[in-house]
């Protein structure tokens, strides 16, 4: 159950996209999201889907993984689709009793669903091809200018790294504690809602205690290795923008401008 979470998961590989500079990937993902919202018309969305298919192909990540990350938000997509389908006024295609489906409603549903799917697939590609550690590294570099404004950039990045590192550990720990309490007859997955909430206490207390213990041990281990914050700290792996990064970024940038600007084109056609 807890193991089914795929959003934010990393799939190691050696494709061009895997090797790309994480800063470029991060900025391009943001640009992609912006382009997706600006170009919410059939042409723009078709291009976005095409772009994703090519990108997934190049990265060697199986597209069906996207299906898995979509599963948790499927209810939201369906719900908004329903609302749009039945409640958008316009030219009716089909009408029965109080239900009316309009062309405009259908159009909205298509645009909306494709846009959400592209959004999830696009951001997932970033996390699939970039390890969390590298990603926070990139974030730290990109946010460095804000350090001048006394924003604790390094500390934030370090907190993120540690938090990401601890997620799988804590999931495993939760599984273990749940098994141990179930072995003592705790009912965790049945009963009334109030009973279930109460049943979580035997899981949460040991989990918190162990999280604090681990934090304490980690702090000690970091101090033993003379960690003293970001000041004057050098890196083992320097981020380096190569010719490939510039080329790919340029290609993507042009494509995103086309997607973003496709609204004008669509306007001229329609």
């Amino acid at each position: 159950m807890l193991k089914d979470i795929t959003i934010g998961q990393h799939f190691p590989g050696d494709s061009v996209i895997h090797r790309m500079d994480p800063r470029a990937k991060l900025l391009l993902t943001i640009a992609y999201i912006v382009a997706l919202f600006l170009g919410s018309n059939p042409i723009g969305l078709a291009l976005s889907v095409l772009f994703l298919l090519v990108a997934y192909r190049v990265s060697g990540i199986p597209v069906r993984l996207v299906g898995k990350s979509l599963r948790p938000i499927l209810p939201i997509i369906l719900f908004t689709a329903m609302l749009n389908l039945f409640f958008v006024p316009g030219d009716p295609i089909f009408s029965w009793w109080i239900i009316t489906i309009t062309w405009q409603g259908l159009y909205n549903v298509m645009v909306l669903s494709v846009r959400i799917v592209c959004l999830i697939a696009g951001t997932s590609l970033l996390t699939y091809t970039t390890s969390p550690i590298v990603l926070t590294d990139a974030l730290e570099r990109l946010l460095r200018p804000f350090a001048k404004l006394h924003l604790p950039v390094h500390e934030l990045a370090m907190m993120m790294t540690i938090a990401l590192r601890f997620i799988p550990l804590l999931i495993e720990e939760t599984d273990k504690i749940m098994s141990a309490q179930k072995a003592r007859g705790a009912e965790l997955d049945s009963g009334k809602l109030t009973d279930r909430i109460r049943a979580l206490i035997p899981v949460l207390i040991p989990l918190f205690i162990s999280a604090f213990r681990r934090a304490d041990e980690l702090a000690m281990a970091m101090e033993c290795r003379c960690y003293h914050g970001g000041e004057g700290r050098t890196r083992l792996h320097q981020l380096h923008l190569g010719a490939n990064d510039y080329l790919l970024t340029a290609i993507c940038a042009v494509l995103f401008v086309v997607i973003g600007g496709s609204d004008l084109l669509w306007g001229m056609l329609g």
Partner: protein
Amino acid sequence: MAPIIKIEHLTYIYGEGMPDATRALDDISFEIERGEFLGVIGPTGCGKSTLITHFNGLNRPTSGRLLIDGEDMWADPRQIRKYRFKVGLVFQYPEYQLFEETVRKDIAFGPRNMGLPEEEIEKRVIEAARFCGLEEEMLDRSPFELSGGQKRRVAIAGVIAMRPEVLVLDEPAAGLDPEGREMILSQVRRYHKETGTTVVLVSHSMEDIAKYADRVLVLQAGKLAMLDTTANIFARAQELVEYGLSVPQVTKIFLGLRQMGVDVPVDVYTVKYARDVILKALAERGGAAHA
């Protein structure tokens, strides 16, 4: 009488249908006799822990059957909780599962989940605490202010208080000092002797297994490699070494003696037995000089 646990062709696959599915347990069949002390050994990652979580229904077999007291455990999945009380499972590092304000309440968690009346719960808590060597004054303290070894004994008492028919312990002595190990294991043995409860002990320590187990089960890469009496298992030292396991140190010495041509039995696995063998050999070789 039916064996207390009977396992028929048990196979368990992790992440079935996924590309990285692994066969953690592969076609395992055996029986656990009522009242026996069974040791389970095997190299790390061979599936020991996965196997024991099947005994009380925390894991459901991918295929195969588990019979407790002759009843198919998964005949009605809604009844599975019943078997959690029949087969008490103590996990590795059980002290990390403590959560109550007092030791007394924590030990009472299992019996309370069974829906027993208050007096019965109280009786069982005191009894379990006694078996685990916890003094009564300790019962009203917070489990978090106890030492590591004491915490572990509280956790074991929490399972014993359910009076399971089978007590399964996964490395109960891991990470304790020699005195702590000895204490926990001898308490488990005393409990086994006094109540006649069936005990399954998973351990990496060949010495501990040799000392306590009647029979030993060897698990290797998810398969049942051997199941025999302790003496017969440790007589097959060569095979154990091939599995990445070993034999008790005293057995090693006697196997070495055999290689040197001394006529000693192959199944010497406890120090006490070794002493008897040595004394006998000395007596035969002109014990008069010794006497």
